[in-house]
């Protein structure tokens, strides 16, 4: 089951401070749905305010990105630029 880490303080207000969560999901979309089911509001926060690093590679707005059972997943703040 993929281990999801909330990087930094963003999002932890939905999980009561918990930074690491075990989630059953094989795509980013399913991950967001499952996170929101367990921690209401977190799904929207992740979807709109965060990027996802899967095994080191950063994905932003990518529902279909696949997750493996041993994937290392970090939820990080959305990245922009200038």
């Amino acid at each position, binding site marked *: 089951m993929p281990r999801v880490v909330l990087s*930094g303080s963003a999002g932890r207000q939905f999980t009561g401070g918990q930074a690491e969560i075990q989630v059953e999901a094989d795509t980013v979309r399913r991950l967001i749905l499952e996170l929101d089911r367990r921690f209401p509001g977190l799904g929207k926060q992740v979807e709109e305010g965060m990027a996802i690093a899967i095994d080191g590679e950063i994905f932003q707005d*990518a529902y279909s990105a696949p997750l493996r059972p041993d994937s290392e997943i970090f939820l990080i703040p959305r990245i922009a630029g200038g």
Partner: protein
Amino acid sequence: MTVIGTREHLKVVGTRPIRPDGVDKVTGRAAFGADLALPGMLVGKVKRSPHAHARILSIDVEKARALPGVKAVITAADLPEIPSEESFVGEGPMNFRDLSRNCMARGKALYEGHAVAAVAATSGAIADAALDLIEVEYEPLPHVLDVEAAMAADAPLLHEDLFTQGVEPAPSQPSNIAKRIQFSLGDLAAGFQAAEVVLERRYTTRPVHQAYIEPHACVASAAADGQCQIWCSSQGQFMVRAYCAKLLDMPISSIRVTPAEIGGGFGGKTLVYLEPLALALAKQSGRPVKMVMTREEVFRATGPTSGAAVEVKLGATRAGKITAAQAVLKYQAGAFPGSPVQPGCMAAFAMYDLENVSITGYDVVCNRPKVAAYRAPGAPIASFAVETCLDELARTLGMDPIALREKNAARDGTRTAYGPTFRDIGYVETLQAAKDHPHLRTPLGPNQGRGIASGFWFNVGGESTAEVHINEDGTAVVVSGNPDIGGSRASLAMMAAEVLGIPVDRVRPIVGDTSSIGFSFLTGGSRVTFATGMAVVQAAEEVVSELTRRAAMIWDIGPESVEWTDGAAVPTGAHAGKFDPLPLAAIALKAGRTGGPISAKASINAQGAGPGFATHVCDVEVDPETGKVTILRYTAVQDVGRAIHPSYVEGQIQGGVAQGIGWALNEEYVYDGNGRLENPGFLDYRVPVASDLPMIEAVLVEVPNPRHPFGVRGVGEVPIVPPMAAVANAIHAAVGVRMTDLPMSPPRLLAAIERAGR
């Protein structure tokens, strides 16, 4: 200029053709935002608050409305009230309510220069006279400019409804602190325990403006059926469309935005200021309205980047291994929340492989113009602090500054403090190339010194649409939706030409308007050559597939027996050698008969943007009698993935370095005691001029990004990250004075030299 790294056999990519928009730009034909004139056009102007902080008690526009020649007058009352709503339409999070109130003040003026009303009239002179007739009653309030002063418990409060996010328990009283964020890794206390040397330092920086030479400009027109057009220079025509639709409560499809050429942006044109106002004035008057900011308005009312206070604490062994790193970043956001403190926190230690890290950031509002993105937002400030502290650490340990960085460098597989693991990065390659460069062996004289600093930026991908059309004569048109700031049209044409196998001068790149091309995320985040390039390559590859199918039809053989080589279809397999190669032009001639026009479109959300790293070397000479710093020599080494057009990659590096040097040595806002800006012009807001700088050596290291068909990595933002620390470290090497406050202008440096008794 040198390029290091492997290069496959490419015909177009990596060469230096003349840019397709070049002739227009050197003859004055290129049309920028202020260059359009429409029949019946009115001139729009904005009335701005003279107070840094004030309640707006009343606005009376009747005398202005009555002035002959005035055709429309608006205040916040004429714009929809937008509820608080975060969005990610533009560059980074944007609260639409804040954006609306920044474009036109509602209830309160929050900075000197804040727009409170706007008029459209038949001439600029009449518009100015009308502004003078608008009567605004203000109740001035105490103001606060400095970030730490704004954090104090008794600071003047900007927003009654701003409660600090990210603090447990949530505060019951509003404050000017919009957000507190935190990143940590490992065990900081244990890390400092294990340290044999600990350095703790404080750094301060001032807000600086992107200082693009072209002021904001637009023309807006509205028809009676609600169809609107905007012509403007911006970093994203789709962003302008979306923001205007939201702020004026209109369907997106009723606005068509045509991008003009843009005279510099650097992040400062990733949002709107004039466009919603021009559109509202155009609707009210029934005539097109042109609005152009004066240079003064640009300084008084458009987003600079943050000023900040940064505390850094580093612990290391005597052998130079960093065991603990801590930083506290306080960034001021201007009048509304949204400073780049978050990316600043994430980028601060990103170049290093650290086990124990803690980074805390504060986003703080104050009575200055709302901060906007500026080239690698947040990172230059954080790196000024961290890279200067590292230099001091190196000296304390008696270590060479490059060696210290090599010992702690992030590499493939390094886990970052903000979470992800790096893959396929080129940081150590830049350190190596800097070490090998003859610059390091150039002798230095009295009062001269050399400084080293490194930098990092994430780079982004995102949504892009591109179309490739083959014309009847075999030339091609590439249409995409990103304003060309740095030469991206050239790179896109080159990538298409490479895939199609034709000379680049037979490919014409066009930037389409919002109705002519599918959606594209804006130009920023160093994304266009990467993401839009990816879309162009995909579309070009589809065209090539189609071309081989058409050739197969012409030859009456199976399509699996046709390959594309050097811009022509070539028969293979059982049919090899049976037909002469069929060039693209010949196939194009028969497009109708073989199935119709040949074109393809790609709409993607590009993932896999690779981060960029740089190492800079700067030599300065300090005049100990005046505090003036002369940059003698500057070498910027950067991992660029693959340089599609090396001249424009070099140009991005040289331009970013120049901005960083200005930020380091001279640029700052000067306010009087009433919170009014005293230097809203280029005479006293001192950006680097040609006589301030030497030639800037750009060294391109190529560690290709495997997620892009040509290995592209974003390049535009990384170059502005190292210069401030590189210059500060060079000044220390020259005169033994450690500057921790920016800018390091002559009066400040002279005072520091005198304090140090040198």
